[in-house]
């Protein structure tokens, strides 16, 4: 049976797993945005934190994904359900590009612009919301884009701990030594990654300073 026939026959399951995949990626990206952007702002404001925060996020990034799932297994509440575990791991991986790009985006804003704003009597908060974040938004979205694309790929591994997603087909196909089954997971995952990359790329260009 070729891959297209297999996908056609199992289209409902593929759709379910795709939605599950999207959910894992979506929730973890959202969490990473909520945690990572404020951390990036914090690091840009108080340079004391830049070594521990960026260093920490870097270290997480070096942990192999299967090992990270394993490390988190004994954690209370989190370890109790596979999807929680997968979401936490994906969130941790997505943090680095978000923190780093938020930091780099803010630091990249022209000093003269910041100084003009400060000199005219803008408060630190007004500068952040009206000047720094809008001017950094293109770079921050670029960070979200990297995080999402990486997460779509990484989320396939989550199936190894039973968290579902398109990795289910990949692992099943590996066990069955059946390429059609592997591809039924891999093709939609690749498609999701490309779609996310394209749409966030559009947004990034839209937000970049003219």
């Amino acid at each position, binding site marked *: 049976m070729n891959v297209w026939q297999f996908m056609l026959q199992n289209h409902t399951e593929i759709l379910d797993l795709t939605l599950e995949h999207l959910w894992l990626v979506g929730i973890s990206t959202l969490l990473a945005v909520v945690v990572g952007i404020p951390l990036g702002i914090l690091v840009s404001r108080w340079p004391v934190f830049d070594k521990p925060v960026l260093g920490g996020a870097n270290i997480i990034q070096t942990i192999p994904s299967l090992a990270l799932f394993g490390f988190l297994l004994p954690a209370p509440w989190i370890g109790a359900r596979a999807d929680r575990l997968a979401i936490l791991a994906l969130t941790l991986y997505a943090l680095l590009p978000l923190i780093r790009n938020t930091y780099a985006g803010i630091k990249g804003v022209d000093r003269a612009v910041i100084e*003009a704003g*400060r*000199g*005219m009597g803008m408060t630190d908060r007004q500068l952040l919301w009206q000047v720094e974040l809008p*001017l950094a938004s293109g770079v921050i979205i670029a960070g979200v884009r990297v995080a999402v694309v990486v997460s779509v790929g990484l989320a396939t591994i989550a199936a190894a701990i039973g968290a579902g997603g398109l990795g289910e087909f990949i692992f099943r196909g590996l066990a069955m030594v059946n390429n059609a089954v592997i591809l039924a997971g891999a093709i939609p995952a690749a498609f999701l990654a490309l779609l996310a990359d394209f749409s966030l790329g559009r947004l990034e260009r839209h937000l970049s*300073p003219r």
Partner: protein
Amino acid sequence: MNTPVDQTPAIEFRNVSYRLENGKELLHRLTLTVRRGETLVLLGRSGSGKTTTLKLINQLLVPSAGELFVDGRSTRDWDVIRLRRFIGYAIQETGLFPHFTVARNIGLVPQIEKWPASRIQQRVEELLQLVGLDPQMAARYPGELSGGQRQRVGVARALAADPPILLMDEPFGALDPLTRAELQQEFRALQQRLRKTVVFVTHDLNEALLLGTRIALMEDGRLFSTHTPEEFLQSDEPLVTAYLEAFGADNHRGKRGQP
């Protein structure tokens, strides 16, 4: 220096020094008074301490020693945000917000001062006219303007909330000579009308002579001398002479050129 007795000076430096964290002194014991309604030009080469002096006034820098008074009150007693909104600030064109339209750039201080929108709009229109810009420019972004237009926007923005004091850091520095001369003339006319207290930083002697009520010559973090433009041209202090020669401004003195 003789301060007018009938009123407090707009700005007064008393023995103000500024040092970097590494101990390098950028400004050494500056004592200087800026009178109300005058245009004081800080003239000097790069690194002479002009910009440092300017930034001390709106507290972008804080004195390492000495005391500084704005409107008769020590800057230590001013709320820094209030102080800055009391003082207009214009720098080279790079200081415009690239993601704000011209109207939002000009209306920035009124907006953070929470003026009602209709009043801001009215003020923006007024200012566009004042600095000689077409009202249709309001919707444009700084990136779509010429250097001269951007600079007019910068001046309009500094004037937005009608501050009594204006700080200008080489505002015409990045312009071509022709546009530059145009804006200098217009600014001079504007200043004669508005009578703000202006502190103007430049390294261009001709600009200093044209716009200054007085010229404070700075060198190596010290105030060298203060002169009116007429006195400046008559002075035979070596540093002044060096400037006059460097700018070929000898002809200002009424001397003939080389035979």
